[in-house]
């Protein structure tokens, strides 16, 4: 189930060798152990484990703050958003479903919704559109196959290369590793320490963006 967040057997072995700790090391660099936070959320949900939650808090709260400052341009509102988001994480941990995505993705969506409703409340628009209307958890059918394969042909025909530079850096890097260096998705995941699911997501987003670039604007 955790496969999409990159917890492969390879990584699982590494975990146990490192001595089982789920704790993010004192290392200030943002490297993450793939799969650890998904596991942590499950433990928090089942055992209401405050110690485990404190570790998760220690990792995500300051990152959410940095994210929030970018979004609000205001430290006080950012901290309010962090507190509300992390409270939701504690209270709703049981709703986290690793088969639908990574812990960090789930936490981001909570933060987005909290922020949206916070801004609405500040404008006292009670009657209005809420985060609940906009981002319900729909079903996300995994659509592998036909589209991407069709586009592989375009890639081989080198039609796409000139448009690579227009991709967001994170997506471009993944595309270069897959299509120029010919690494497997798994290898890219390991090299960049990002979840396998994110590698696939970035490829799909990049392909969609390239399709737009090649077809040109519609008049």
């Amino acid at each position, binding site marked *: 189930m955790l496969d999409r967040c990159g917890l492969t057997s390879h990584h699982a072995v590494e975990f146990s060798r490192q001595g089982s700790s789920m704790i993010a090391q*004192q290392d200030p*660099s*943002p490297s993450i152990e793939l799969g650890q*936070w998904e596991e942590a959320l499950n433990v928090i949900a089942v055992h209401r484990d405050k110690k485990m939650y*404190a570790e998760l*808090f*220690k*990792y995500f*709260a*300051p*990152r959410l*703050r*940095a994210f929030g400052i970018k*979004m609000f341009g205001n430290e006080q509102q950012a*901290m309010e958003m962090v507190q*509300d988001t992390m*409270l*939701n994480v*504690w209270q*709703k941990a049981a709703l986290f479903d690793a088969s639908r*995505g*990574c812990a*960090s*993705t*789930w*936490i*981001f*969506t909570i933060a*987005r*919704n*909290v922020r949206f409703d916070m801004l*609405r409340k500040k404008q006292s628009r009670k009657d*209005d*559109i*809420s985060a609940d*209307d*906009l*981002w*319900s958890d729909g*079903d*996300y*059918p995994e*659509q592998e196959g036909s589209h991407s394969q069709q586009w592989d042909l375009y890639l081989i025909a080198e039609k796409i290369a000139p448009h690579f530079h227009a991709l967001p850096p*994170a*997506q471009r890097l993944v595309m270069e590793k897959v299509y120029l260096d010919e690494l497997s998705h798994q290898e890219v995941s390991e090299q960049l320490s*990002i*979840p396998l*699911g*994110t590698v696939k*997501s*970035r490829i799909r*987003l990049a392909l*969609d*963006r390239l399709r*737009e670039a090649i*077809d*040109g*604007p*519609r*008049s």
Partner: protein
Amino acid sequence: MAHAVKFHPSLSLLEQYTEGTLAAELSLVVAAHLDFCPHCQQLRHDIEADIGCQLAQQSAASADGEEWQQMLQQILSPDAATTTQGSVETASSTESETVATHIEQGQHRIEIPRSLQRLAAKRKKWLQLGGIATAKLPSGDDNHLSLLLIESNTEVPLHTHKGLEITLVLAGEMVDEMGKYAAGDLIINTPDHTHTPKNISHEPCLCLSVLTAPLEFKQGLTRLLNPLQRFFY
């Protein structure tokens, strides 16, 4: 049987919707499109995964300070829910609110997508103008959100304004020079380019329409429809 949606929002519109930076009324139109469109649902999921990964890899100072300790204690204290203005409560109060699963107008009764059901229960009165009935939904001052019910053999009148008009077909059909629009399809009118869709079918056509303020869009968002849908379908 669900048909394939042909007219999708552009990737940049989807990204802003997913980040939560798009205006609420426009976000609602995108959300309603997603209720019809598994392709864009997948893209939304991909964008969320991408941003989530950026969040995890964000560099940040450690959370050792006094302020963080206090926040952690507050969250873990048993009465946390009452000390913060949590959206936990908002979420549960939303569930008990009334929703409208169908729109009723005259003798018509039409099912509407999930994302509109809570707001549809708060619609204003229907106003009839020729073959078109409109009912406003609650929205902000800058953008206007309304339902349109277009009878058969009726043309949608042009709006001349400096903003955008985005129309999402919820049920029935419309046609214009670009082709035929059905449930889930977006029709986008910009100040430079105006479609005049008509309902030439025998059934009424229900749409959601948002009219934006003039300054809602600056450069970079000029492309609003995904131009590649014809590659897929």
